[in-house]
């Protein structure tokens, strides 16, 4: 040590003494049971919140710790957290902290249970339907752990919020799609091993790397320097959306020259998943390299991607579930030459490269800057047909409930219906797509069209494609202004171009297909232009790979600047933050549509929105254990591109009176962090006002796509989140979580209905009587009680008892209008039937898991590295409850003539029956 340092060190001791209270230095070493140092452990003083992390030798130091009783919390991703009570009476306190390994790959974290299903035939969106991907379970908190695994089986949404209200960042870059608002969990699906370093801020609590969103923000740090120095490979077997998973990961650790790198590869596959006709084929890859240039700068380049192909399933009406004898009926597949073939195959691959620069500007401030480039596409295939018999096996006219006599001949109908039901019940092929018949139709259609002779396809398989390109830039500045104040702020710039089009994938034995609008309204014979999707290239002959039907691009730009201050005092913490942002977008059409020739080709006007947000809160720290907090936020948010345009496939018309949504949210509660008991009780209240949404579907009566644009959507979400985790001693932990919410529409939105084959308004700003109807999206109440036993011999068992309630079926807006209720007397049973919203029954499930870790070094003493084999087994829905509806929606068609709500019955998705996940992991570090 140099002379200067010899002088300074004692000075450093004196300076704190000059402050009012006496302070000490807390030092120590963190190591595991074998004595191996633990790096990156977080050592936090409670209640002040001051923390540090241990270095590669496990050492840490915290200065200016006040004398007196205090608590120290040691946590990290590889071991169980500990809370130590100490009494500081001397200037230097040394702690020796021994950690116990948390068993990796507990069935919870292992199984990435990301559902691969979407809500409707048209719904091309990727990513989780709501809430947080279970890959990201940061299971320190019993509540978060429950919501990301146990509750995700029921597709529970935290506070009922849409996915748009949660933000995920990876290495400093926001991982969201600014066209649809969804988080891009699918970009790193399967890469569980490398996304373990993460921070989660719940609700309105302040985060360090982002202004956040009202639901919470995840920050994942997958840079090479954060990856553990280890080699790990695992194989898992399951029966959920995939059957097999193989993963291999290597982290080099930081070398002496400051270089580190990490590689990971994951492969998941299944010939057939839990639902018949679904298959899965996914490859994910990851590479990160980082150079710690000096003590101030480090630069990391991370690139990863997930290429996933899967056969999808669709929800169905109860009638066909009953005929098929299972709740897992899937209308998307059929037999072709005796083999199962799925018509709706999703294929997504959107690799991303992120460059992250971490600059320690001083020892009090840092600047994290990241830039990313992402490109790729997501496609969903489906059957397309022109002038042909509808090939959908669950088409309502094929079902026994379809009465061709419209009630006038009950006897004849009963006989006919019985025969149809018997045929469907006994013959599986009749309930599924009849591929051989579709191929035959193509084969016999030898004809000439537009100068081309050959087999003109009646049926093709076509992909609906979205090509994306995203460029992001995000810079976050953090500064410790003084002992009490930390300032965070940042600048985010995002640009996204998404191109949408349809592409012929499989001509199914035919020679060509044609680019004609099969829904064209030809009654006005003078206007044959309406047949054309692309007037500048009419009657085009299509081969495999050709684009057709529609082709447009969404250009979205978003920029935000934010600042936040967090004040920490002995008893009180405060924070306040503000964000200003600008979002603009326009549509760029590539085809001149025959029905809307003047509004389809070219760039639309640019819509631009200026938005702002304010948030703030206070926490009262009664002592190291009891915290009371209250936070509030107000923000305005620009509408999403996909909701702003009425029917972007055909034209550039915008929703009436397009404006930003305004949101305000308050939350508050109590947290208890005692050594043996952790509990929380939180209440929340959020209002969303003036939201905009667009839905499209095919309407058989109008024989075209019909679009519902709903504006002035007001919602109110309110509820409680309660959680308690008790260490009962002897290795037993009990946990109980209850999320009780009531999420409703607080006012009547307006609906404007348009059709795609005619420039007419079917309804304009029609009042939708949706007030007090519930927001659909998972059960609004979810409860779980868990018992966990951890043995000192490195094994554990876990049992969870769960109950889900208050799941509501998504409603059809046109069924709650004056039009639908016309001629129905108010207050009658029929009136109530039309207006009411279905609520599913409460469901009870049970999950169990167990795991065992074996340290090979104990037996093979001369192994140089720490070597483990870990086994994990999880069983979900042990009692095989196959009646749990996880989502449902009323079909968007309503028979205004008969007013029969069951004519176009609702469709449901059911949660899987008993499923398991068993894995074996080999790890060396």
């Amino acid at each position, binding site marked *: 040590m140099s002379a200067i340092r010899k002088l300074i060190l004692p000075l450093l001791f004196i300076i704190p003494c000059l402050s009012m209270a006496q302070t000490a230095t807390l030092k120590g070493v963190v190591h595991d049971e074998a004595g191996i140092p633990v790096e990156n452990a977080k050592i936090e003083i409670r209640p002040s919140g001051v923390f540090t992390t241990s270095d590669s030798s496990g050492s840490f130091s915290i200065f200016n710790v006040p004398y007196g009783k205090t608590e120290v919390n040691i946590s990290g991703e590889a071991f169980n957290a500990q809370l130590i009570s100490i009494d500081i009476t001397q200037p230097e306190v040394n702690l020796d902290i021994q950690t116990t390994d948390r068993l990796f790959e507990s069935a919870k974290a292992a199984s990435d249970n990301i559902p691969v299903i979407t809500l409707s035939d048209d719904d091309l969106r990727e990513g989780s339907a709501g809430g947080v991907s279970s890959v990201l379970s940061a299971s320190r908190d019993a509540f978060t752990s429950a919501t990301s695994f146990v509750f995700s089986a029921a597709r529970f949404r935290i506070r009922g919020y849409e996915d748009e209200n949660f933000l995920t960042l990876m290495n400093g870059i926001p991982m969201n799609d600014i066209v649809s608002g969804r988080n891009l969990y699918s970009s790193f699906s399967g890469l569980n091993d490398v996304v373990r370093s993460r921070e989660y801020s719940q609700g309105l609590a302040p985060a360090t790397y982002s202004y956040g969103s009202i639901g919470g923000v995840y920050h994942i740090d997958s840079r090479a320097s954060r990856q553990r120095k280890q080699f790990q490979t695992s194989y898992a077997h399951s029966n959920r959306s995939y059957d097999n998973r193989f993963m291999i990961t290597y982290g080099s650790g930081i070398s002496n020259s400051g270089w580190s790198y990490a590689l990971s590869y994951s492969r998941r596959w299944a010939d057939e998943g839990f639902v018949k006709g679904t298959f899965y084929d996914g490859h994910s890859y990851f590479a990160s390299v980082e150079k710690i240039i000096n003590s101030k700068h480090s630069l990391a380049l991370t690139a990863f991607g997930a290429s996933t192909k899967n056969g999808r399933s669709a929800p169905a009406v109860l009638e066909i579930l009953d005929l098929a004898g299972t709740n897992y009926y899937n209308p998307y597949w059929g037999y072709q030459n005796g083999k199962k073939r799925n018509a709706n195959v999703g294929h997504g691959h959107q690799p991303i490269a992120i460059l992250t620069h971490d600059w320690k500007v001083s020892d009090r401030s840092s600047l994290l800057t990241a830039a990313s480039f992402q490109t790729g596409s997501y496609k969903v295939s489906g059957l397309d047909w022109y002038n*042909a018999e509808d090939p959908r096996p669950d088409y309502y006219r094929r079902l026994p409930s379809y009465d061709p006599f419209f009630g006038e001949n009950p006897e004849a109908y009963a006989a006919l219906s019985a025969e149809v039901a018997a045929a469907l019940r006994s013959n599986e092929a009749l309930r599924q797509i009849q591929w051989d018949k579709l191929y035959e139709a193509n084969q016999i259609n030898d004809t000439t069209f537009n100068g081309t002779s050959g087999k003109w396809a009646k049926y093709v398989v076509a992909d609906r494609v979205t090509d994306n390109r995203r460029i992001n830039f995000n810079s976050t500045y953090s500064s410790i202004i003084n002992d009490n104040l930390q300032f965070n702020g940042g600048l985010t710039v995002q640009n996204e171009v998404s191109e949408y089009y349809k592409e012929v994938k499989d001509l199914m034995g035919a020679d060509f297909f044609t680019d004609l609008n099969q829904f064209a309204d030809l009654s006005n014979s003078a206007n044959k232009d309406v047949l054309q999707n692309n007037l500048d290239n009419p009657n085009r002959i299509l081969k495999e790979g050709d684009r057709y039907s529609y082709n447009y691009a969404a250009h979205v730009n978003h920029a935000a600047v934010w600042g936040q201050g967090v004040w920490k005092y002995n008893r009180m913490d405060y924070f306040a933050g503000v964000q200003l942002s600008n979002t603009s977008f326009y549509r760029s059409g590539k085809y001149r549509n025959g029905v809307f020739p003047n509004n389809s080709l070219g760039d639309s006007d640019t819509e631009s929105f200026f938005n702002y947000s304010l948030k703030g809160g206070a926490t009262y720290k009664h002592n190291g254990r009891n915290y009371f907090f209250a936070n509030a936020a107000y923000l305005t948010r620009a509408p999403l591109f996909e909701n702003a345009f009425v029917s972007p496939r055909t034209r550039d018309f915008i929703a009436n009176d397009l404006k930003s949504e305004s949101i305000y949210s308050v939350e508050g509660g109590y947290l208890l962090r005692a050594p043996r008991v952790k509990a929380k009780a939180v209440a929340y209240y959020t209002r969303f006002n003036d939201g905009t949404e667009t839905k499209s579907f095919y309407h058989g009566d109008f024989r075209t796509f019909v679009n519902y644009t709903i504006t002035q959507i007001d919602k109110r979400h309110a509820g409680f989140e309660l959680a308690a985790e008790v260490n009962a001693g002897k290795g037993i932990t009990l946990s109980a979580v209850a999320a009780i919410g009531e999420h409703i529409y607080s006012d009547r939105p307006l609906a404007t209905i348009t059709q795609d084959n005619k420039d007419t308004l079917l309804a304009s700003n029609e009042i939708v009587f949706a007030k007090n109807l519930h927001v659909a999206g998972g059960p609004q109440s979810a409860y779980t009680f868990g018992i966990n036993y951890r043995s000192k011999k490195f094994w554990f068992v876990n049992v969870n008892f769960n109950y889900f309630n208050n799941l509501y079926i998504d409603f059809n807006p046109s069924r709650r209008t004056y039009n639908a209720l016309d001629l129905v007397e108010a207050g009658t049973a029929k009136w109530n039937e039309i207006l009411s919203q279905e609520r599913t029954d409460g469901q009870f499930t049970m999950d169990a898991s167990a795991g065992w870790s074996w340290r090979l070094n104990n037996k093979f003493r001369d192994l140089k590295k720490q070597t483990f084999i870990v086994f994990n087994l999880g069983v979900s829905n042990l009692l095989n409850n196959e009646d749990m509806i996880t989502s449902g929606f009323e079909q968007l068609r309503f028979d205004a003539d008969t007013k029969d709500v069951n004519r176009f019955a609702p469709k449901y998705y059911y949660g899987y029956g008993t499923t398991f996940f068993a894995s074996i992991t080999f790890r060396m570090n």
Partner: protein
Amino acid sequence: MRILKNKINYLLMLFVIAAGFSSCVKDEFDAPVTANVDPAGIAATHTIAQVQSMAVANVPTPITTDIVISGVIIADDESGSIYKEIIISDSTGGISIQVDVSNFNTNYPMGRRVFVKCKGLYVMKDADGNYEIGFQNGADIARIPQTLYEQYVIKGMWGLTVTPTVISLGALNSVKTNTLVQINNCEFIQANAGVTYADAPNLRFKNLTIKDCANNDIILYTSGYAKFASDTTPTGNGTIIAVYKRYSGDGELILRNTSDVRMDSTRCNGNTGNAVLMPIDSLRMLHTGTTTFAPADKKIKGIVISDISTAHINSRNVVIQDGTAGILVRFEFGASNIFFLGDEIEVIVSGLELSEFNGLLQVNNVPLANAVKVGTGTITPRVATVAQILSNAEAWESTLVQIQNATISGSGSTYSGSRTVTDVSGSMVMFTSSSATFSAQTYPVTPVTITSIVSQYNIPTPPGYQLSLRNPALDVQ
């Protein structure tokens, strides 16, 4: 030992990596090819005629035994002119299979042989003698549901040609219903030539008439949903191939597609059927003193200036005027004028008689079907004096004139009969038939403005130019 353990580790890793890559999820599919043959194990047991003999009128008869009939599909719903019925025929007859399927032509197109498993189905004959097979709905045949029809109607070879039976419109009673027929040397009647097959904008059907040169005719029914509904019918003479059905005691044809109609030869009356418009004054000039006949392929167009509602002229007559002149059109014996004041009509005058009736030029014996309303319009009467009218009477005959400041006088006080119209320049006769609705009405004696048609009746006194009043309420002001 250590080396061995490292090797084991190494091998373990390799094994695990290999396991990961070995399994592949199949994505390529074999395209099934259907052989163009009749299905094995099924053959017709009965002819269509035999099954027809089991049917009674208006009561569905159940078929309870394993009867199979076979026929070739003669018409499908590709053009939209046929809806939810697969019409098949064999050498003995034809039958309509009622199916609740739109776009059945996808797998059941024209020219495909099918085998119908009749057990469980019902057969019926309607009052007109058309046979149907399907499910039962009370006293009707109901359509076989979409989910089930392929089990009853088994697909066979496709691409077969069906030869239509040539029939004559004069001998329709022997023609079998639901069979494909061909009629030679026929044409659309004049009024239905060059018109649309159906009313597409309103999705309404049309019944058009086709006739042969012996004037036998048959109705062609076209649905408003047909894709060719807005195409126009040919104007010449030739051949039509269509499905024959019976309706309301008469024969009826359903067209499958416009390619089944080839009519571009000369019509029965020698015309091509494409009449060219000629001005009325040119037509008038063709009459040079004696009865003559209008040339082929000619038509005139004018606005009706006579009033059907007041019966001021003979019920077979109508007076029209175009921008050049006017003329009287007299319909054939047995036909009456149906056109109203203000209608704009086209009259095909090809080959028709141009003659004078007591000095008044007329197109005589015009078939009512030759005249069709094409719009509406008004004629502004030419303001003239009596003297001018009398000196231009031939040129202005059958046109509308207006005399101002004239007085009416006569032996009686009512309009009926001959009266005198006098203005400053002179006077002339105004004649009203006693059958006119206003004939008993009293005429005003004060000076009035009179609008009327210039007419002629040269008996007893030539030239006999006179005025013909349509309706005093409008014409006498």
